[in-house]
């Protein structure tokens, strides 16, 4: 067993247009590792949605991607407002996004459902006023 590889990112909200860059960087690195393209695709969609959520709903945070020989974990941690009702937030179409966010093309309420669909395991730890940590796992084989 080799050591897991860790990619760490600060997800910054100061420049909204840069949202999504961490998932692009991860995607490039995973291609260099020669991972199957369906694994890369699942991971980059799941991570992208999580990254955007941190920017839109939680003033940014950190993203860590841990690659082992069997699986890849994505840990997205923010210190935002937290999610009051996780089951509700997980429903397709549920969104608290403002009109302004809608005008940017987000807020369809599909992010969390997509993260669940494209990851193999997903866990949400959230506390109101403290923050949210989303952990996703994608198995390589």
């Amino acid at each position: 067993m080799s050591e897991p590889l860790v990619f760490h990112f600060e997800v910054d909200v100061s420049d909204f247009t840069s949202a999504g860059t961490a998932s692009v960087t991860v995607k490039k690195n995973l291609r260099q590792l020669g991972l199957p393209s369906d694994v890369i695709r699942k991971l980059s969609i799941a991570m992208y949605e999580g990254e955007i959520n941190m920017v839109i709903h939680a003033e940014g945070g950190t993203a860590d991607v841990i690659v082992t020989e069997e699986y890849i974990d994505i840990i997205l941690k923010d210190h935002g407002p937290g999610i009051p009702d996780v089951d509700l937030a997980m429903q397709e179409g549920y969104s608290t996004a403002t009109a302004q966010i809608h005008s940017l093309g987000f807020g369809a309420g599909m992010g969390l459902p997509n993260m669940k669909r494209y990851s193999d395991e997903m866990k949400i730890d959230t506390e109101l006023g403290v923050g949210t940590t989303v952990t996703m796992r994608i198995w390589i084989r």
Partner: protein
Amino acid sequence: MDQYEHSVQLDPKKCTGCTTCLHHCPTEAIRIREGHAVINQDRCIDCGECIRKCPHNAKRAVAGKLESLQRFRYKVALPAPSLYGQFNNMDDVDYILDGLIKIGFDEVFEVAKAAELVSAYTRRYMQAEGIPKPLISSACPVILRLISLMYPSLEDHVLHMLPPIEVAADLARKKVKKEHPEFRDEEVGICFISPCPAKVSYVRNNFGSYKSKVDEVVAISDIYFRLLDVMKPENQVQTISDTGMTGIEWAGSGGEATAILNEDYLAADGIENVNKVLEEIENGNISHVKFVELNACPGGCVGGVLTVQNPFIAKARLRSVSRCLPMAANFADPDEEYIPEDFLFDEMPSYVPVSRLSPNFRESMRMMAEIQRIRDTLPGIDCGACGAPTCRAHAEDAVRAGLRTVTCPFADSFGGSRK
């Protein structure tokens, strides 16, 4: 891997080893070695960015020469629609086509004609069940090579329609065979008049299993002055042109997409924008869009590095050339059920994993960790002084070469570590 023969090349005598191209190459194919730029042939996509950006004109695109057509007894010119936007005070395409005959071609077959047919059949293609969304245009050879090198998961999205240049070559060849049976196939030379180096490379290397029917590719810039010499307003010219507005407007970004006659399209030009769009498609973000037109050159084909005119001026001229024309002059065969075989290609070139570190996953992991370790010893300013485009790329080069440390001219002044 077969060596891909490239049009974009370097003149070491002119290259000063400045780092301009290094920072602009979208595939990080360039390194500075021993004082001048070196292009990694496996990675180059012939986008021409380095030619566009080089302040010393040290990069050039090698294309065919008009003289080399002497080997053919019957010569057919296939002018790209972008040629029509190159001339001042020119509102009649026939003067240009007549010019081509005057400089030595026996016949002209407009690529714009083929473009209109490709548009008509693309509309048919899009009506079939199970078409991926969005569909990506196959017309720009840089984009096809970019996808096959960097976006293998998008190969299914590519429209399997041959680009207008090939459709034109096929139709031109058939036409000559019928009208001039006295010439043997190998006596007929089909010559594309090209705005871009990527067409040159594509024709030389073929495309996947598809063998190009074009014999020679000559640069627009190479024949431009010869054409100017013979194109006189007082000339009596014949009517040769047989294309409408849509075929001509393929030369500019958005031309192909608007000809799809569907609102749900997107057209992006310039390699940086193209990369962003491809990322978005991979992330599933624009699946509501039906058709995506991508052009590596800013402005579309009129922005190719083998053209003469500023792309925006060229685009405006195209509008005046096509103003009095019908929407289209070439139509899909109504008796044909689907799309003629001759318009389709079977498969994309196979994925070439140029960026992969090692065929062995465990070894790749080890190398990646090593790249990160070395990168963290570098200042992170991506200055290019070491010859690599970024500190990350410098670390990667070292690891690929089996080195454990790297030299950095600025390591000391930055304390040898970033952040």
